[in-house]
């Protein structure tokens, strides 16, 4: 019997008026994998995230999470089923401390504050934010805010974690830390889908890469193959670059 994939996306289409942000996108993610989604700005990566996680209703197509259809479900229901995500523009609760932020996420699985705090402390220690747990969310550096957002998502105890550019704008040291965190999340048995522009990270962490351009999937494969593919190079650098090679 074939194993049910963690996430299966079938022909997801989303258009805003005449602009097709996602045009019949198909791909699937096996449990335990790290799959990166890359593509130039405006390729439809974030829209795809929004369609899968219930923030936008897709115009057509379906998404299945472990065989169960999640298209057209409410975002909070999808989260409860075990799909967590972060946003390209960091979303944290500014007037709460780091611990309270993560605890609010943990409350999805606990009725009371006590056990949720324990879970939150555990997640913060895992994410390397333990010492900053009493800082206000707004007082953090951008790197720590991104770590906090990932921690909040982890606190909801997902099976699938979708990170939207969690590594953008980080220094080299911070980037190493984030790559390391991503790998450790996978070791916990959580499947990851990562939208990323930082190719260094993509090459290192991905099992497979899906490439989008102008709303269409143009390529899918192991990272090393993908970066050599002429269509991908063309999407990123233009036609003349491909010809000159």
């Amino acid at each position, binding site marked *: 019997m074939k194993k049910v994939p963690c996430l299966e996306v079938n022909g997801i289409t989303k258009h805003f008026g005449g602009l097709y942000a996602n045009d019949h996108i198909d791909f699937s993610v096996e449990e335990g994998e790290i799959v990166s989604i890359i593509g130039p700005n405006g390729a439809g990566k974030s829209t795809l995230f929004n369609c899968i*996680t*219930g*923030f936008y209703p897709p115009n057509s197509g379906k998404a299945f999470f472990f065989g169960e259809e999640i298209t057209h479900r*409410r*975002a*909070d229901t999808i*989260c*409860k089923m075990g799909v*967590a*995500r*972060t*946003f390209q523009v960091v*979303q*944290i*609760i*500014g*007037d*709460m401390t780091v611990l*309270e932020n993560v*605890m*609010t*996420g943990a*409350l*999805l699985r*606990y*009725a*009371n*504050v006590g056990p*949720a*705090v324990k879970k939150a402390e555990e997640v913060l220690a895992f994410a390397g934010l333990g010492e900053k747990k*009493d*800082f*206000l969310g707004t*007082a953090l550096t951008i790197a720590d805010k991104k770590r906090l957002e990932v921690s*909040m*998502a982890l606190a*909801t105890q997902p099976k699938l974690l979708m990170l939207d550019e969690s590594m953008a704008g980080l220094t080299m040291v911070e980037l190493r830390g984030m790559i390391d965190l991503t790998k450790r999340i996978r070791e916990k048995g959580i499947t990851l889908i990562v939208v990323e522009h930082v190719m260094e990270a993509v090459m290192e962490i991905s099992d497979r890469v899906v490439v989008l351009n102008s709303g269409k999937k143009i390529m899918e494969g192991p990272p090393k193959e993908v970066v050599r593919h002429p269509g991908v190079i063309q999407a990123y650098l233009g036609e003349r670059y491909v010809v000159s090679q």
Partner: protein
Amino acid sequence: MRKLTLKQICGGIIAFIAVGIFPLLTTNTFAQHVVILFFMFGMMGVAWNIMGGYAGMFSFGQVAFFGIGAYTSSFLLITYHVTPWIGLIVGGLVAALVGAAIGYPCSNLRGHYFAIASIAFGEIVRTHFNNWKLIGAAEGLSLPMLNEGFKNFMFHSSKLPYYYIMLTFLIISLGICYLISTSKIGYYLRAIKESHDVAKVLGINVVRYRLIAIMTSAFLTAMAGTFYAQYVLYIDPESVMLLPISIQIVLISMLGGAGSVMGPVVGAAILIPISEVTRVWLGHKGTGVDMLIYGFLITLISVYQPKGVWGLFTNMGKRAK
């Protein structure tokens, strides 16, 4: 998380004793009246705070719940001779249901848009009541004079029973607000206040938790409405449904400190005596003087301490972080 400190508990006990014996020390009924109103607006501020302070729903329509509470219990008393104590509960439930009915379609409204919708809601309810013959339309309802006593929720010889009933209501409201603020609901409401996106991504059913906040707030505000009807024994749309009452509730909460349990009580303690005293001392000539003072205080506090007067106390220790 935010456990009560020893200092807070001691302060609470002292304040409790002070308000408990205050009316026994003075025979001045005006002073008692001012404190009763302070309790009542404090309670409505606490109720507003659950919506506005925690969940970020800036309601300028609270007076509709107040009026619904006042009218429901009075109507039941006059028409069916139902004791106001049952009317109190029924009024609260009616207000909560009306709140849910208006809150549900407004689920996606945030910030200014929610505020505008809430003003419209309050005005629509007032206009209806102003023209609704069954409940006296613009003439209002005069409550029958019944025998004095707890059962009838009517006391003619002294304000003391009203004083202690309202104090009890206020304490109940504070208790509910405290429970909410320290529980899952409170954290969820604060997440919703920050942004609906962040709430959804944490698995929070935004619509459900907003409705919980609206309905709780509506119920408590309606309780104050029933109390007011029993206290003055005459209600009409002009006295229990006017927009300025809603605005006063918001100002009280903002001045005292939105998003903290005690903030609205502090705000009411400052603003209600000002408005009552100026009204009595300056009479008709003084109309609006309290609003001038309000405006000045609100400007001051929003410039120097956006978390309100209560924030002045609680933030001193936290600055270092």
